[in-house]
Every structure is written in structure tokens, then in C-alpha cells.
């Protein structure tokens, strides 16, 4: 911590914020960002932590950029995030868009997948090339995951969100039992097995 001009007592709650883990989930409308956030939030609640989750509905459902934040800790106040400990990006361009929101010591998990915004075609632009390099240049600590390929391999292309949660779970101090129970509670009954499989697949990374 750098010098503070004013004398803030150590016990005045100054460090409470440091106990809060902030996770930003980003992607494109339709990729299951909100569901992923709900699973993470419930897993943390089952783990006995205070949780706040925030998202924006409405216009953003229609193929736009979607972001949801989940914060967990002993005591959480703001539902939104200033700087994140983890960013889970389900699309590479969205990863670049939010890279600057990661803490210096944070970790960014990126699904190696591209969805071109329609606005690109109509303004005669191309989807940016070498996004990995551009993300690396921001200096963030990141891991690229071929989650889309993995999702296709297990025969369920739409489970990328839960595969990425599996990857995230390896870096978080939450018991496996909490994760599995949360998935069971949050996805439709007929999709439980598929999603549990996707989650286990993610944990292999």
C-alpha cells in the first residue's frame, strides 16, 4: 500500500475491501453471462460468504456487450466492481474491452472465441486480428482457454459459460460441493448433467 496523506486507523474498515473478491464476467448477449454469474454467486452463498451480483437487463440482451459482476467476502457493500480480481471473458474482443479493469495481481480467463459485432460489417471494418497480442500488451495476467472447442467436443456448444466457471473454480477458494450444488439449483433439470460435465471439463484446465 502506498502512503496515505491522512491517518486512517487500520481497524476502521479500511481493509475490509481487500477481503472482497470481485469477479467480472463479460461476453455477448446470448452467451449465458447472467447464468454464469448466478451460479458463481450462489456457490459463494452456499460457501457461507456474503455475495452481491449485478447486471444490466434490457437493451443489452440483443447481441450487445454484456457484463455482470459478482462480489464475495465477509462483508460486501457495492454490487458493482471498481477493479476486478478475476475477469472471465467468453469472447476475445470483450476480453480486450475490459482488460483495463483487472487489478495488477488479477487473473483474466479468456475463451478463445470470436463473435464479430455487426457494427463492424456496416462500417466496412474487419474483426481485429491478433487480439491475443493486443490483450497481452495491456500487461494483464491471462489464460486463453479453448472452451468453445471443448464445448463442441462434449457435444454441447452452448456450455462455454459453465466450462469457464470450471476453469475459474480452480483459482477460487470455494469447495467443489458448493459449485456443483449451485449448478444443480440454477440450470433447468434436463440440463443439469450436461452442465456438470461441462464444469468438470473446465476444471481440467
Amino acid at each position, binding site marked *: 500500500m502506498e502512503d496515505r496523506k491522512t491517518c486512517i486507523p487500520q481497524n476502521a474498515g479500511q481493509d475490509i475491501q481487500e477481503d472482497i473478491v470481485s469477479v467480472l464476467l463479460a461476453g455477448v448477449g446470448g452467451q449465458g453471462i447472467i447464468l454464469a454469474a448466478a451460479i458463481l454467486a450462489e456457490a459463494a452463498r452456499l460457501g457461507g460468504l456474503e455475495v452481491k451480483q449485478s447486471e444490466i437487463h434490457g437493451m443489452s440482451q440483443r447481441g450487445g456487450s454484456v457484463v455482470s459482476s459478482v462480489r464475495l467476502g465477509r462483508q460486501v457493500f457495492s454490487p458493482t466492481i471498481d477493479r476486478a480480481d478475476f475477469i472471465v471473458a467468453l469472447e476475445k474482443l470483450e476480453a480486450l474491452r475490459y*482488460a483495463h479493469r483487472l487489478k495488477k495481481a488479477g487473473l483474466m480467463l479468456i475463451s478463445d472465441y470470436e463473435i464479430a459485432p455487426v457494427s463492424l460489417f456496416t462500417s466496412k471494418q474487419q474483426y481485429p486480428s491478433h487480439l491475443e497480442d493486443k490483450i497481452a500488451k495491456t500487461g494483464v495476467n491471462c489464460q486463453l482457454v479453448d472452451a468453445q472447442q471443448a464445448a463442441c467436443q462434449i457435444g454441447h456448444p452452448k456450455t462455454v459459460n459453465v466450462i469457464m466457471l470450471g476453469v475459474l473454480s480452480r483459482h477460487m477458494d470455494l469447495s467443489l460441493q458448493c459449485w456443483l450444488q449451485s449448478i444443480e439449483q440454477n440450470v433447468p433439470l434436463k440440463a443439469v448433467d450436461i452442465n456438470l460435465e461441462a464444469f468438470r471439463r473446465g476444471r481440467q484446465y
Partner: protein
Amino acid sequence: MNTKSKLLTGNEAIARGAWEAGVTVAAAYPGTPSTEILESLSTYDQVYAQWSVNEKVALEIASGASMEGARTLVAMKHVGLNVAADPFMTLAYTGVGGGLVIVTADDPAMHSSQNEQDNRYYALMAKVPLLEPSDSQEAKQYVIEAFRLSEKYDTPVLLRTTTRVSHSKSEVELLPRLDRIKPEYAKDSSKYVMIPGYGRPRRTNLINRWNRLAAHAENSPLHYIYRPACSQAPEVGMVTSGISYQYAREVFTGIDILKLGITCPLPQKLIQGFARGKKLLLVAEELEPFLEDQIKALGLGVEVAGKQYFPQQGELSLAIMKEAYTQLFGSRGQSPFSPAPQEVPSRPPVLCAGCSHRPVFYVLHKLKVRVMGDIGCYSLAVLPPLNAMDSLLCMGAGVGQALGMEKANPDIKGKVVSVIGDSTFFHSGITSLVDSVYNQGTGVIIILDNRTTAMTGHQANPGMGSTLQKEQVPVVLPEKIAEAAGVKNIQVVDPYQLEQLEKVIKKELARDELSVIVCRQECVLLKKEGIQERFFIDQAVCRDCGVCLKFGCPAIQVRKGKYLIDGIMCTSCGVCPSLCKFGAIKREGR
């Protein structure tokens, strides 16, 4: 812990609170960020919940139910209260029977709205108490308290949330439903019939009630003072409410914070007491200086500051709060954000692949007519490449605007259309349609009927044949209403038939009389049948002219210089083959 709890959004928590408070009747028109309140409440037993055609009607239903003794909830987004303002202002005079709570879900930062008005002023204008929860647990608790206040003081009560409270989740304690005995209806015209002779004494009553409410607000258990164990700056105090408290509490950990639960009427003595011994009161609130101005007017003899640290538009955030902290007390940890990376292409929302609105706007753009628009998914047609909307004011406004434009300049006859969705038509398009008939408008009114209220998430409306609680009911058809209103030229077309659609629009534009065109095709997200046919771009025929891109369908893409149709996105609406004059867009197998 022996109580049950659950992670709920603020909206779900409001529904839970209403249920626990014994609510039996609820009404709303869907609108972000309020929509999920009724959706959630409709799933509880012993509750009648309905979508109304607009917020005014919803409040009128609530008023009737309340007269009958029921506890009643009405929910709306901030602009919805403008629609309901007429019954609302007089409801403050009549008061209630059973408790009546109105939720206004304000949208700072306009995530999904046409403005960012601060509805706390409505409470002040109507002399109605206003409660502001700051998380889901409070949202639930405040609803229950609001019903108690409503009955105790014989008044409607406003519960104000903002987007972050409505749509963020936190833990909520679940309690059983209150066992409430509904009071008997007793006729009392002097209370409910607001003719001037009865209204004047009710006005006196209203003012007296206001004074009693002010006394109540002083001692409300909803207020809370946070005092840090070791104060960093005893001469500074913060006053805040709603979501702003959460940001403040996380950053200003070393100073006293007064969190107000009831912000109207303002608890003046409480604030006075809190200010004692302090030199500065910092008021943290989103949007208008609602608390700040009123606190300044108290003349407390301390400095009161707010908007010089917090913006008058948009949402507050931890970053803004930290900046204010730094200004007051110096540096606090790392700066909120690193500079954003090199420019990243934006990803605005788009009309879905296969959306039935797209062909209509494609044709309107091509015909170069003025398009008086409205609020719904089709608002997205204002963006490139369709660029096909000239106005968007409020629900139902486009039809009236088109008439006004034509009256101001008769030369533009045949060059103006208004577009309105089916749900919006039922909300407030019917009255302007009738006005257009009566005042001899000659324009074209296009009703974009996708058989649902799509923008807010596919809520039922009178055109759908089912209610919020899934009862089957007769379908109301917009063309029948137009016919009853006296419109002579009514066409119902399938917007997927692009050539036919253009022909009809051209023909109706050429008339010297009012026309209604109903473009009917079910919302593509609700279509049950799978993909019927596959479409592709024949590379041998494609001339790379790019005309197909002007349609703006997300499934039509360019990859590595080649035009193609993304098979995963395409919904086989079948419109695109007619876009290409070279015939390069083909059905598979043909």
C-alpha cells in the same frame, strides 16, 4: 441460522416483500428496470397479478382493489409514473383502503430508457411518503413497512429503487406471509369522489397528514447511522440513501454516515442532530440534488456539499466515490482505472437475426420517408445500417408526432409514417390513432405486431391470447381496433415477404387518406419450429457489392473478404435472397 434465505434481485425481493405483506392484487406495465417485480409476484399463491395496457390503468386497478380493502402493489419504471401521474396526484387526496404501494424503478445512466428523471420529486409534489432501499434485504423489508405506513396514514406510498438495486442480487431472509384480515368496503363518497366540494377538505387532510408523516419520518426505524470505531474526521458527516449508501460505506469507512430510509418527508430534526458538531455534511446521491437542496434549506449552520463532488447525471460508482474521497482526504490506494486500451470496436445491441422488424425499416429507409418512431426493440432501427428512425419521444408519441408534422407542413403528405409495436399500440397508441382519424390525418401508421412485448423479455399483452398468469383469453387485434375507429385503409402483411411489403407501403403512402398497415410475424425468439431451410451465398455469383450488408442482419457477415451467412445465427426467415439482385443468396438444395 434457522431462517431460510435466498439470493434475490431487488425486484424479486420486492415481490417477496409484497407477498409476505399479504398483497392480493398487483398490476404493472413491463419496463426496464421494473419488469421482474410483477413476473416474480405472479408466481406466488394467493396473488392476482396482471399486465395492464399502461401504468395509468395499472394504478387505477390498484386504487379500486385498495378501496375494496386489498393490499395492492403497482410497479413501473420511472417514465411510467409520468403516464400514471394523473391518477397518482389525486390518489394522494383520496388515500387508500387496503395498503397501496407504488414502485418507481428509476434508471440513472439510462441503461434502457429515454431519460433519467429523478422521481423523488413526484413524492414531494404529491406529498406522498417515499422510501429508498439500498439492497435486496432492505427492498423486501421496506415494502412491508410501506404497506404498514400506507394503512396507518391512509396514503399511497412510493418505493423508489434505482437500476442497481432492481437488478443486483444479495441475500434475503424469507419469512412467512402475514395473516391479514381484509377490511370491509364502506361507501364514503366524501373520501373517494373528488368533486371540488369534497376535494377541498381532502386537501386540508393531505396537509395535516403530511405533518404527521414528517413527525413519523423523524423516528423511523429505517434510518441508520454508521459510526466508525475510530473516526478519521469527526468534523465531517455523510448523508446518503439508496444504492449511494453502499458505495459510500465501502469507501468512506472512517467517517459518520447517516443513511436515510425515508427521504420524503425529510427527517429534519434527525439531520439537525447528526450535523451537530460537524463542519461539513457531504450529501451523496445519484441524479438530482434532492436531499442536498432540502438540507441546505434547513440552514443548519454547517457547510453542505454534494454535487460539487458527485455528478448530476449517471450512476454513482466506487470509482467516483474514491475520487471524492481523494479530493477530501488525499490519496486512497491505487487509482481506479488504468487507461483504457487502444480503441476497441463497439458492440451495440442489434435487431436479432431473422427479426421481422428489419424488413420494414429496410423498406422505409429505401423509400426515404420520415419515420416517427416509438419505444421497443424496433428503436434499434435508428442505428446503422438501417438509420430508419427520425424520432423517439415516449410510448405512443410517434403517431401523434406524424399527424403534427403533416399539419405543420401539408407538402410532406405521403412522406411520413409512424411505427408502433403491438404492445405499445395497446399502451397508448389507440388514443392517438383515434385522434388521427378524427383530425383527418393522411399518413401511414405501421403497427409492428410481433405478438409479444419483446424488448422487456416477451411479456404477454392483449394481442396474445394469454395473461401474465397464463390464463387463455380472447385475442385483441389492432386491425379490428383501427376498423372500429373508422380507418378505411387497413392492410395486414407478412413482413418477411419483402417485395409485397414494399408494394403495400408504397401504395398506402400514395393515398390521400389515413392508412394502417399491420406487419405481423411472430418474434423470432419465440418461434418454436426449428430451422426449415438453410441459406448460403454462392461465391461464384457474389459480386462483393455489399448491398446485403445494408440489411444489417447479424447472420450476414464478411470473413476474410468473403460474404457469407453464418449457419448458427441464421433463423431461415427467408428475406435475404430478395436483397441480392444478382441472385447470389440461395436456398440450400436449389
